[in-house]
């Protein structure tokens, strides 16, 4: 009974922190800009569909390729990374800069719970900003007179949603760790996402396994230029191994972030 009480109490604390984070982080003008980027991705799906339907160019890509290109570049390589970088690095940093962290740390809640609650909010925000774009893009590209491709490629859509959700969890955990540990987390995050991952992914040898993108590319059904290049210099990791590694990474990053939040002294500048 005591154990179930503490689990219920822990879950209530997580939800409270997540709701507070959603309220402060999500409901702000900045979310409008992120939403605008998501809409641009949808607009690209519209352009791809228009090219196909209106036969504007002789070599228009089929819906599956357009969808694949959008998912591998705009969504996986940009939108997921951007959303998790933007919100993930802000989870703790925003509280420190806004000097509101004191209010949270002065409550009878373990600090790791605060970190986990905020991560929960990040996953929720990321899912809202990204997954509907994936589903809407699919609808824009596939819905038509002939619905056979729509149902034939439905498994691809489900797989994409699952992998993109995993990507949100993985990048979200990593950038949350950066935000909890470092002062200039945005710069380091940008250098990692658009520098390190871009360069190392195409290097031969073991270094590719030191990126999140390598494991995501190994299970992603679509390919882009970077993925094709990386294939030239090395093999993908087996799907099961990739998924297990990603899950382990998520657990490790979040656990480390929780430990840092627990032990670090956050000095709020006066």
């Amino acid at each position, binding site marked *: 009974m005591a154990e179930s009480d503490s689990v219920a*109490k822990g879950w*209530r*604390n997580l939800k*409270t*922190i997540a*709701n*507070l984070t959603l*309220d*402060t982080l999500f*409901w*702000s003008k900045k979310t409008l800009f992120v939403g605008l980027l998501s809409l641009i991705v949808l607009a690209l799906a519209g352009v791809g569909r228009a090219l196909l339907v209106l036969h504007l160019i002789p070599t228009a890509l089929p819906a599956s390729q357009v969808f694949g290109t959008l998912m591998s570049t705009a969504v996986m390589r940009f939108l997921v990374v951007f959303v998790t970088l933007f919100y993930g690095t802000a989870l703790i940093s925003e509280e420190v800069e*806004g*000097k*509101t962290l*004191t*209010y*949270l*740390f*002065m*409550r*009878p*809640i*373990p*600090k790791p719970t605060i970190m986990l609650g905020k991560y929960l909010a990040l996953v929720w925000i990321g899912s809202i900003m990204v997954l509907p774009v994936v589903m809407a893009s699919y609808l824009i590209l596939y819905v038509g007179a002939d619905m056979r491709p729509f149902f034939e490629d439905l498994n691809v859509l489900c797989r994409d949603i699952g992998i993109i959700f995993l990507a949100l969890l993985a990048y979200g955990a990593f950038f949350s760790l950066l935000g909890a540990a470092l002062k200039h987390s945005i710069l380091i995050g940008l250098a990692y996402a658009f520098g390190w991952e871009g360069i190392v992914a195409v290097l031969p040898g073991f270094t590719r396994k030191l990126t999140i993108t390598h494991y995501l590319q190994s299970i992603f059904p679509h390919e882009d230029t970077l993925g094709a290049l990386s294939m030239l210099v090395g093999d993908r990791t087996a799907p099961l191994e990739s998924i297990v590694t990603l899950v382990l990474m998520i657990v490790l990053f979040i656990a480390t972030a929780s430990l840092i939040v*627990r*032990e670090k*002294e*956050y*000095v*709020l500048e*006066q």
Partner: protein
Amino acid sequence: MSALVEGKTLSKWYGQIVALNNVTFTIGQGVVGLLGPNGAGKSTLMKLITGQLRPSQGEITVFGESIWNNFPLFHRIGFCPEQDSFYERMTGAEFLSALLHMHPFGDAEIGKRVDSALETVNLSSVRDKKIAAYSKGMRQRIKLAQAIAHDPDVMVLDEPLAGMDPVGRRDIIQLVRRWGTEGKCVIVSSHILHEVEAMTSTILLMHNGKVLAEGDVHQIRDLIDRHPHSIHIRCSKPRKLAEALVGFPDVESIRFDPEGDALTAESRQPDEFYGRLPELMLDNDIELEEITSPDDNLQAVFQYLVK
């Protein structure tokens, strides 16, 4: 008096800067004024007491337990920080409710506590207004409200009167005094000495990271030997009185006011001085108009110990 907050050989440094230097103190029930010039270490001490910082050396205990990462204790501690920072999008009621949800209260209890805290700080009429639209005084009050809403046993208030109008200050001073008499431990930090004096006579005086004095301000004053007590007397014949006083060995000096109707005497034994004064006045047929001790107060203690 049982110690609720105790520091033993407590030190805190940031790199080369020593913010607190081997500080030992005990604080029990009642109101304690934490005083000191800028850079004395008051904020650092408050952050150590509230578990926001970890001691570099020594220990700090609250309710007999180490406070660092001891989250269950925070249910019994309330902290009103100095910084003017909030979740601006929230209304006052939402802000209190969100924070109270992190305590082990049910929803009904939370609602009652929000109402009670807002009423205590006179913010009931603006409970549904966004904090971003609050005036400075209202912001200070809502900060205080979040510190008291869960009815803590120890309250740490960092400059609670900052930005408040005179009526607001009076209300908060009365509240603090009431909490002290109710048996709570209230640690108040302020730069405005006469306001601290209005709240309490028990002080913890700090300077350069060390505790200079601890206890009742009058007792501390008595112990400051190198500064004799000043006694200001306005009477009908000040020079006659001076002639009578000058023969006593405890009288260090006598100075006449420019207007010529008063004198200020300095004595190292104020009790004896006060004891002989009525007889001297009667013997010399002197009418007493006013007698004050300009430096038997916090300001004087602060000045004499710090400078």
